């Protein structure tokens, strides 16, 4: 991490690092890992970790998209269904219509962008509550993905000459391909958000709409773009899961939206907008998974996994509220 990336901090080196919001998410992650490892050393085993990291990337990519809408002050709960939609549309195009990998992926993602645009348009243009609006698209997309398929699942392994799916069967440096895809996407997002004009303006839109307008930012356009990116990233996550499994299932992605939002919130994304960092989101999603995993290692029933997630989310928001309620010095 370059020190230029942490421009909003004061001080040098380590001190500057400890003042970042990402750092305050990292501490609980480290604490949970240390405590669990102290009690059950096999928690830190490579097997356990690679099992965890097999699930993290899909939610993490979706959460990255969710953080885009959250940072502009809205919420998108259609991401899970959009992921499932793209995840079944891509193999459908390949198997039914015999399309190649590139064009089927591109068309699927284009559809995702269109869905995101509809979300953003309805929220920005008509002032509909974002939660209800995206709930509407959640249902529409959720139904549409079943409508367009003739079979329940499409097996990509059975398609002659579809080599992309084999690339996902192998490990690279001990990690599956989608893990590296996730890292690349987060790196791009990190640069976009932290370093580019576009990213800074996106954050400014959610931070203070009035100031954003004053300095000439088109905040409506920014909000629509955030929705489009949210749908796009969800679509990518869905397609990556399909490629990893080798076949598409329509119900993939169900429930991802709230796990993604939970990851964002734990990762320090403010629900009132203006504060989000890709690194924080990645740590946040990891924290959610590690905490669930740790709970199981510590002997709580596996079935409490979801409950832990809920408690973590509420705790993270409470922490955010507490931090914001501190008074400004005179």
């Amino acid at each position, binding site marked *: 991490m370059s020190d230029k990336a942490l*421009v909003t901090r004061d001080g040098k080196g380590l001190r500057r690092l400890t003042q970042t919001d990402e750092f305050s998410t990292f501490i609980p992650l480290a604490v949970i890992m240390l405590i669990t490892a102290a009690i059950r050393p096999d928690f830190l085993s490579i097997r356990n970790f690679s099992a965890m990291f097999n699930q993290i990337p899909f939610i993490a990519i979706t959460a990255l998209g969710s953080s885009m809408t959250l940072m502009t002050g809205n919420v998108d709960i259609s991401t899970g269904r959009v992921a499932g939609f793209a995840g079944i549309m891509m193999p459908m195009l390949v198997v039914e219509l015999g399309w190649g990998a590139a064009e089927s992926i591109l068309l699927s993602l284009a559809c995702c962008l269109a869905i995101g645009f509809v979300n953003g348009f309805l929220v920005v243009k008509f002032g509909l509550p974002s939660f209800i609006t995206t709930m509407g698209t959640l249902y529409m997309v959720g139904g549409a993905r079943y409508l367009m398929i003739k079979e329940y699942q499409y097996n990509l392994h059975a398609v002659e000459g579809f080599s992309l799916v084999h690339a996902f069967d192998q490990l690279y440096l001990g990690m599956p391909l989608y893990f590296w895809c996730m890292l690349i996407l987060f790196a791009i997002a990190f640069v976009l958000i932290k370093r580019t004009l576009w990213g*800074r303006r996106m*954050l400014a839109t959610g931070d203070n709409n009035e*100031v954003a307008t004053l300095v000439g930012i088109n905040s409506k356009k920014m909000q629509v773009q955030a929705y489009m990116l949210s749908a796009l990233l969800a679509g990518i996550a869905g397609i990556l899961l399909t490629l990893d499994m080798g076949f598409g299932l329509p119900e993939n992605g169900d429930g991802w939206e709230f796990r993604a939002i939970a990851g964002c919130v734990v990762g320090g994304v403010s629900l009132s907008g203006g504060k989000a960092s890709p690194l924080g989101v990645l740590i946040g999603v990891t924290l959610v998974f590690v905490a669930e995993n740790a709970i199981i290692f510590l002997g709580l029933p596996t079935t409490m996994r979801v409950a832990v997630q809920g408690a973590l989310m509420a705790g993270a928001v409470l922490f955010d509220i507490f931090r914001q309620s501190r008074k400004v*010095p005179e």
Partner: protein
Amino acid sequence: MQADESIRFSQDTGAESAGTQQFAMQAINITKRFPGVVANDNVCLNVRKGEVMGLIGENGAGKSTLLKVLNGVYPHGSYTGTLLLDGREIRPASPNDAMLLGVGYVPQEINVLKYFSVAENIFMFDLRMESTRDKPQDGRPVRKSRTPFANFSEMFRATKQLLADNRIDLNPRADVRKLSIGQQQMLMIARALAINPKVLILDEPTTSLSGKDVAQLFMVIRHLQARGVSIIFVTHKLAEIVELTDRVTILRDGKNISVYERSQYNTRKIVQDMIGRDIAAMYVKEAQTPGDEVLRVENLTVEHPYVANRNLIENVSFSVRRGEILGMAGLVGAGRSEACMAIFGMLPVKSGKIFIEGKPVTIRNSQEAVRHGIGMVSEDRKKFGLNFVWDIRNNIGISNLGAVARGPFVLKSALSRRAEKYFKSLRVKARSIDTRVATLSGGNQQKIVIARSLNSQPKLMILDEPTKGIDVGSKNEIYGLINEMTKEGVAVVMISSELPELLAMSDRFVVMAEGKVVGELAQDQATETSVMEMATTTFKTVS
């Protein structure tokens, strides 16, 4: 034609020696109308190069409207009149446009990006750090997109330079949410200075500052002035006008009243120009003999909601008796509304005592306030006054459901009877109590708000700007209502920024300034001048 008039106006005001080209900014014959009101009526404002022009006037004098014209909130075309910057006409279409044209604006409220660094706040309009170096075209800098990346190192350097040039003590890398209020105010000034403005508008910049910060602000302003920047300094406070400005323009009722050079300053005269309204004989005050004390407040203190170690109001004490009207005078932001909100349980009280009919009470929420016999009409009718989803019946009836209920059930016939009673006695102009309140005129809406408070049978009625934004006829009816209240023995606390109205209606006065009570006046002691002089006191030491 218009230009002629403007020249005549500037000649009238003793600026004949200064030709048009010497003015940094001119607003000529600005007229801005709203439905039913002329907020600015042929207003002119001429600011010379490198001078600090004070703009002063009471609430509703038309200052904020003029500022919104100058900084583009009201776009060109929504008003009549001409804006000249350095002798050339400008037509700002938005605040951003005005900013790029060279009109810097610092709003009254703190308005910053809290999750960004100081430097990014200042240069958010161009993080590439290019446009300011490009040649301007038509007054606007040209934007070229050579790179999508923000140039942070250049930005920090430029910020450091900018802050040093203007003697503003801020760290470019500092996190904005960790800055104090005073520093955030300085940041907003630096943000406005980043575009090299020809004119800088400061809208009541001292409201949120402590004494030390005010001194720092004045130093920065003098420094800017020395560098040739013109400043429009809007304030309520006379001391600041005397301390800082070279000339002062006084507005009243949307019109130009006078312009004084520094050498002509005379505080009494300025005050008179601010308030000199005709007191129409329409306020018919029916004096009642005051009875027992209903409310006494001792050393009431309310903390600021988000600034540490600061109070909204401090050690406020007063009392009011049966049948008496206590007038609370002061400027906007003096803490009058906050004191009343605290008494009504809407703001948490930090310390101090409230006595109702001699007995000490604690009021933690509005429910308890109503139970102790307090009724309140808030200043903001839209936000606090009405439920626009409802008809007149429910809007009036909601404050006293107990009187129209049997057990848990509300008897609609009783509710209607009660609402009808107030509907008739307050002479609300509407077809029936089934009419939705959203369809009523402002005056009639205000009657509904008052009816709602009366419906809870208060012993003490707090009226915060009860005649704000309503027509003259309705105003008179409201005065009549207040008289009727006192006749029935209700104690009234009245806040009004229209001094003549307050003077005519009240039996006694409490004057507040900067969150404190600065004096109490009996009816015969109070004149517009004596009240205004008290209300413009400032505790902030400027040196």
